[in-house]
């Protein structure tokens, strides 16, 4: 299937979205079972991808299995459309699937994300694919896979509550700030991937379908739309998200997740939206933060 390109070099073509059809079917079957058992980690035969582990090989495989020619793809890395990981993965699917891409959360039908949920509320018919490094929420408490599997089977999550309690005993509050464990549909405890706990409430009753892919660990899990997702907590120490004293220095948004940017070696810093699409949209709508230039 090598077409001779104009320059004399053979042009290499791939199957639609890179993966072969048997691999896609295997991943698709895992996705269907993941949807049927919300929060349960379905093992799948993750393939080697043309990118290193830790760069989103799980998310890329889920996206490749789900993606269709009419999809509009958005890829974000920590909320930003323009960082290396996001640009590389977007380029990968532009090349191998020739799908339309966008940076707009509104316009996208499929969003692959590394460690953030967009600020713009997701809508029906959208799919959010998370890249997951360590899918097992109990892994740092119990290293044996055979044990964690049994703990999930028995819905024995006391260990996780002990961990959160130890946080309180040591720090006076639950100090976990990202990859904060959630309980899905009243059954499985799940790692929401290393999103800030700020984003946890967005997972609950979300109208979009949420799929999670871990390539190195070979697991796929899912949250169907409108599913109850509860962050673990205690009656006397209820779950709380981070609050920021500042608003975005570029678009003046408050109530969003902010990144701290160090400006110089004299303590100068600014806080800006982590979600670049949201920030750009606000600036285009005329919102100006304290450090925004007057612009064109």
């Amino acid at each position, binding site marked *: 299937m090598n077409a001779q390109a104009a320059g004399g070099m053979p042009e290499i073509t791939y199957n639609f979205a890179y993966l072969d059809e048997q691999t896609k079917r295997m991943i*698709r079957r895992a996705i*269907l079972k993941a949807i*049927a*058992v919300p929060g*349960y980690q379905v093992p799948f035969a993750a393939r080697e991808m043309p990118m290193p582990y830790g760069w989103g090989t799980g998310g890329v495989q889920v996206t490749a299995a789900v*993606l*269709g020619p009419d999809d509009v793809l958005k890829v974000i890395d920590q909320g930003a459309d323009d960082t290396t990981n996001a640009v590389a993965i977007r380029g990968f699917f532009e090349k191998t699937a020739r799908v339309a891409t966008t940076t707009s959360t509104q316009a996208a039908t499929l969003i692959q994300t590394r460690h953030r949920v967009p600020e713009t509320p997701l809508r029906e018919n959208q799919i959010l694919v998370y890249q997951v490094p360590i899918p097992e929420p109990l892994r740092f408490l119990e290293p044996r896979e055979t044990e964690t599997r049994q703990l999930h089977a028995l819905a024995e999550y006391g260990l996780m509550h002990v961990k959160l309690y130890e946080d309180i005993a040591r720090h006076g509050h639950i100090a976990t700030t990202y990859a904060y464990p959630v309980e899905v549909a009243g059954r499985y405890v799940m790692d929401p991937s290393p999103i800030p706990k700020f984003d946890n409430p967005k997972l609950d009753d979300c109208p979009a379908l949420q799929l999670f892919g871990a390539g190195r660990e070979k697991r796929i899990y899912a949250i*169907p739309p*409108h599913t109850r997702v509860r962050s673990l907590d205690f009656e006397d120490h209820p779950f709380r998200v981070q609050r920021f004293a500042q608003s975005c220095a570029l678009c003046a948004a408050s109530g969003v997740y902010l990144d701290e940017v160090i400006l110089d070696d004299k303590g100068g810093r600014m806080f800006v939206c982590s979600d670049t699409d949201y920030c750009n949209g606000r600036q285009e709508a005329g919102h100006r933060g304290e450090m925004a230039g007057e612009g064109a």
Partner: protein
Amino acid sequence: MSGTSPDDTLTPCLATGFDDPVMDGQATFRAAMWALSRPGRIEPVTPSLTPPAPLSPEAAALVLALCDYETPLWLDPALALVPDVAAFLRFHTGAPIVGDAREARFALIAEPVEMPDFSDFAQGTPDFPDASATLIVQVQGFGGGLVLEGPGIKGRTAFGAAPLPADFIARMAANRALFPLGVDLLLAGAGGVAGLPRSVTVKEG
């Protein structure tokens, strides 16, 4: 069946599969994915397939999209009776066709009223609840009469399909009680597919 008698020298023509296996497979999977994500909603499936009767085009599309050599497939007696059906599925998917329902990853059911008890199929294990069967059930059409609740549904939603066994609600309740074990259903009707994953609660409407 005409063309299958032993003294017939002409081999019967095998019905063709997807026009475009890549895109048609993707579109059919997406319909099944949304169907299981939003139980009770009918997702359009419009394959250009003419599989041997009594296999319906929609059910055939689901099997072609999801099954291959890794997925033992069980056919209900109505389908098993017609050798062309097994030949069609074997050729296009490579799936081994098994006689023991318990071994099957997928089961294809053309006569829902006669369908065996869900407990005849693989339910998964507490450690691996995903190792359970998916039942592809052919129905004539969709309607109302049932109410669904559960993950994927905002509040509750009306649903119905016909024909279904008389004790369908009781069967689904027993299946729900096994959660996270249990079977998942894809109902294939004219022009669409609806999903009833094991997480759904089915009640009288």
